[in-house]
């Protein structure tokens, strides 16, 4: 209906509107807290060094996988809050399997990755089966499963843990060097990013391909948009629910692995937590689109990286980063809604105008006919 140019303008205006609003609101928060607004933006908008760039890409890789895992559920109208528990159970499993090194070299790595995906899928699948068979809200069951995952992993970790002399950390056995995934250098000799980024990119592509280019993806999206329409066209909603949760869980199983195979080589008491919740925010930011999620993950990782310099060099609380992130999520959702309504009105106006002009032409015809 509306022109190509208008559509492009609308598509670009949405994130711009959101970022400008977030910028303004964060500035107000800074003003209210009496912090140096200009110094803060100067720091946040400064060009990162290669080392920081590597950190941003690394953290974005992890957040990206988490965002994709959540987005699979969103596309099906399923709210998988349990990515947090799923990735921890899975990362622990992978750490134990890889640490035991039953297979040599990269076979060991592959086995650990497959195990992680399987465990993640099973953990999410429990919620899927409960939803399909008993109608239990996946929101409730995945939250519960998160708590169970915390207790289970803590218990099992103590069973298998090894402790380095003099350290107060416990962790799984170190993954043997031959099974680690080498990092990719960024050209300055010291900075490098997780090799796992390639797997993350493949996952992103597969997500796009399956959803948009296969029958299964069509069924999934159809079920997400209208259950009744899906049933009418012969889709088994129950089966789709379980399948979507299994896929979401399998991808969630990958979330912790870049860290495990590229940096820590062990799952210990300080393994990063809370990645699943960040994934929800990032899936929202990215509008469940693989490219959008990548941008959202980069934005979040970029802001996270500012936390330390803001504290040490500018002297403001790092909470400002969390506030900015929260504000961005809200402004993105709100601005998409505003633009959606605006576009709707635009379309309605055009339709109305088109109808009017048709009617006008018709009456003109009549008017011309009269004198004849």
């Amino acid at each position, binding site marked *: 209906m509306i022109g190509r140019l208008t559509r492009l303008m609308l598509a670009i205006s949405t994130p711009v509107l959101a970022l400008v609003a977030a910028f303004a609101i964060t500035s107000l928060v800074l003003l209210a807290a009496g912090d140096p607004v200009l110094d803060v933006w100067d720091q946040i908008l400064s060009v990162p060094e290669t080392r920081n760039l590597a950190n941003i890409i690394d953290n974005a890789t992890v957040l990206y996988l988490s965002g994709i895992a959540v987005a699979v559920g969103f596309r099906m109208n399923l709210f998988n809050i349990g990515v947090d528990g799923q990735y921890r159970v899975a990362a622990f499993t992978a750490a134990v399997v890889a640490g035991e090194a039953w297979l040599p070299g990269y076979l060991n790595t592959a086995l650990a990755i497959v195990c992680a995906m399987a465990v993640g899928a099973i953990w999410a699948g429990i919620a899927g089966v409960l939803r399909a068979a008993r109608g239990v809200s996946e929101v409730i069951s995945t939250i519960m499963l998160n708590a169970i995952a915390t207790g289970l992993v803590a218990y099992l970790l103590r069973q298998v843990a090894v402790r380095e002399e003099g350290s107060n950390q416990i962790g799984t056995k170190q993954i043997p060097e031959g099974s680690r995934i080498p990092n990719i250098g960024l050209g300055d000799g010291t900075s490098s990013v997780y090799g796992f980024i390639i797997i993350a990119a493949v996952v992103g592509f597969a997500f796009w391909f399956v959803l948009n280019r296969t029958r299964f993806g069509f069924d999934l999206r159809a079920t997400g948009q209208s259950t009744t329409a899906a049933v009418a066209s012969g889709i088994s909603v129950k089966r789709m629910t379980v399948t979507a949760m299994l896929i979401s869980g399998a991808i969630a199983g990958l979330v912790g692995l870049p860290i495990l195979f590229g940096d820590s080589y062990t799952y210990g008491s300080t393994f990063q937590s809370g990645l699943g919740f960040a994934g929800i925010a990032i899936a929202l930011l990215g509008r469940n689109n693989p490219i959008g999620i990548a941008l959202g993950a980069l934005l979040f990782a970029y802001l996270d990286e500012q936390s330390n310099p803001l504290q040490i060099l500018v002297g403001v*609380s790092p909470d400002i980063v969390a506030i900015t992130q929260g504000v961005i999520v809200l402004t993105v959702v709100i601005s998409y809604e505003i633009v959606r309504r605006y576009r709707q009105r635009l379309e309605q106006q055009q339709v109305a105008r088109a109808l009017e002009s048709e009617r006008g032409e018709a009456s003109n015809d009549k008017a011309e006919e009269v004198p004849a």
Partner: protein
Amino acid sequence: MRRTTKFAALLTAGILALGACGSSDSDGESSTTGSDTPSSSAPQSDVKVGMAYDVGGRGDQSFNDSAAAGLDQAVEEFGMTPNESEAEDGEAENAREERLRTFADAGFDPIIAVGFAYAASVGKVAAEYPDVHFAIIDDSSLADVPNVASLVFAEEQGSFLVGAAAALKTQTDHVGFIGGVETPLIQKFQAGYEAGVAAVNPKVKVDVTYLTQVPDFSGFGDPAKGKTAAQGMYDAGADIVYHAAGGSGGGVFEAASESGNLAIGVDSDQYNTADPSVQDVIMTSMLKNVNVAVYEYLKQVNDGSFPTGVTTYDLSVDGVGYSTSGGMIDDITGQLDDYKQQIIDGKITVPTEPK
């Protein structure tokens, strides 16, 4: 679909906002302390100290605060320039590393990492900056790194003494131990406490519970959990409960106060720092003088030498101990000091892991 999105957005924003609130007690403080330059009359020093706190940071009324007290004392006496930064819950490992690097790049030397969670990061960054000096508290896995000083404590020895005090004071032959998070570090407190109780009277029963399991570190900052756990122990017949649970300890004191029983504090002399309404239940506190360790370290730095290797703060150097504020254990200090001497002399070896 859109309904879910809105719901999710609201929830996410809520979680992020709550996360920001959770640590807002330290708001502003980090900004003011950074610019705290000593006045012209104060002693001057060109040493710039970087403090990297664990989650909670300055203002946690526990471990981090104790380290901060040591820093404040050194800053006041020697006129050093401090700057502080704290870890966030659920941050990436490379964020911890980056905190240390940011300090190092900004010319801070020495850099003090508060807490064992920094072990891996300090190991990595110390290698990248061989000319910068680091100190790490509660970890000795980096003993061989030339530019790292490890400051560790014999928590089991101090816990032994308060365990002995509990066994001497209990009326019901039943005492309790509440740990914040089940980590090897807190298990040292438990092991020492149990050994101290057994040394006095092996018949005294010791209940043990931990509030949370790793990676959930909320057990160090959840007074409600502490209160519930302590209430359960008092209901079961224990009359003295020792907590090694950081900020959750406030709940333990409340439970003791409401049920008319006693409790033992941890890290600092909690008789003086806890809420006055629960002061009378704090029989004694196991002192873990992190402030002493930080101060002593900075004192040596001020004198021109950077210590390396492991320094253990145990009973012999009063790195750990017990407090007598309130006068509730004045009648048994003779016996406790006897145990203390035996530990210093090596006649008693206190275990570091629970049986």
